[in-house]
């Protein structure tokens, strides 16, 4: 069901942890849906992401996308990083199972929120996040077996 890349990032996640005195922190998801991602940024004077770490509560897709995005943006400018989409993260992982695309593929949202937090314009962002949370098509409650 998961690609080798997903399983690799799930079993050997890169950049797990926290950054003390981070320049930006972003969190998306909620406990109801079973996915919470938090991203910590260290940004240098040239607006380059010098360090990035994450903590994620969630399924393998949530953990792998978190791990993957940290690898994708480390060393990039925040302008470049802001352009990364959830879809690109999934593509880098060789794809995700269809339902996971809409459920646990939130890492780019977490990253954006962390960058916006760094930029100091949090209010605007909060709304956006709420929206993401609600749109998440988590309709698998019929899946008992």
């Amino acid at each position, binding site marked *: 069901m998961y690609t080798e890349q997903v399983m690799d990032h799930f079993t050997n996640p890169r950049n797990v942890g926290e950054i003390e005195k981070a320049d930006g922190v972003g969190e998306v998801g909620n406990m109801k849906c079973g996915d919470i991602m938090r991203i910590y940024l260290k940004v240098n004077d040239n607006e380059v992401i010098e360090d990035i770490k994450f903590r994620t509560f969630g399924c393998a897709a949530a953990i792998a996308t978190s791990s993957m995005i940290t690898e994708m943006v480390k060393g990039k400018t925040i302008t470049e990083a802001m352009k990364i989409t959830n879809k690109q993260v999934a593509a880098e992982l060789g794809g995700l199972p*269809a339902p996971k695309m809409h459920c646990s593929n939130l890492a780019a949202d977490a990253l954006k929120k962390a960058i916006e937090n760094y930029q100091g314009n949090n209010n605007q962002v909060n709304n956006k996040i709420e929206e993401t949370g609600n749109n998440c098509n988590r309709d*698998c409650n019929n899946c008992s077996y």
Partner: protein
Amino acid sequence: MRKVYLDHAATTPLNEEVLNEMLPYLKEHFGNPSSIHSFGREARRAVEESRERVAAALGASAEEIIFTSGATEANNLAIRGIARAQQKKGNHIITSAVEHHAVYDTCAALQKEGFDVTFLPVDEYGMVSVDAVAAAITDKTILVTIMLANNEVGTIMPIAEIGQLCREHDIIFHTDAVQAIGNIPVNVKDLNVDLLSLTAHKFYGPKGVGALYLRKGTRLNVYHYGGAQERKLRPGTENVPGIVGLGKAIELAVKDLEAKTNRIKVLRDRLQEGLLAIEHTKLNGHPQQRLPGNLNVSILFVEGESLILSLDLKGIAVSSGSACTSGSLDPSHVLMAMGLDHQTAHGSLRFTLGVNNTEEEIDYVLEVLPDIVTRLRSMSPVYKGSNK
């Protein structure tokens, strides 16, 4: 890699003896039971012998058994068939908040069609109370459907008492006994039920075949049209090898039941003790009134699917009230109905033991699980660290 299967509530391996009884019907005895020539008569005999076996295992008589493609179909047929047959008498149905979706969603669909459905709440252990059923009954109640044992947490419901109550009020009573067969005694007379659903693959029988017990004299509306098979209540060419397998599997399932389940219970209790020794864990389901092979625990601060996949990488097969192939999800309606918070529900793991599990397997699980939990917690944004 070492493989440890601890997901017997999802499905069970086919018993070899059962397969051996099925094989002739997958080979030379291939006739259609509706055919009157020798090939057909051979198949017919096998189907009717299996019906006798199923009836004997349940304390029913053969003409009370209807073969179906599984419990999903049996539940749909039972609930829809009774609702339609009784709708002149009333339009109220009582069920519980912790039923399998084959019951829950069928009742919800009937609600949309105009029936009045009560979804009874459960206590923290997932238990439905007899008093709650009594309080819910009205003059319009035509059907009560409550499962015998819950598939997620294993809680065993007071079905005989609810059945007694329904008899007193002349209300038809159905139970989904899928998880109970082969794990606890199931006798339709002792349980006071009018209808009972089961599916073979939960007790070492084949997939794709089940049965509905329909007490003599209970009228059921057809909802599926076709040939005259199963007294027209379930038309379609019979799955002969499957039916033969069901008959043999249920015969074996009820044999030496106590000895088998005592053995399983010892292993389950060993696993339970080891698991609850891990910090921040919690038992779900009733501590005593529970299926012998069921152990559902919540492991706080981590999510079910990542636990399952981590265990899977060690060859251990379990399930969760949190994860399914179709993606992240609302946590199990069963755990939510029991009042668990979202985090606790998302961290649930279900171990369901079977006849082939060994002590070594249990010890292996207890050996690998703590490291997995530690690793996942170390990644978790909600974990606040050990108490120690």
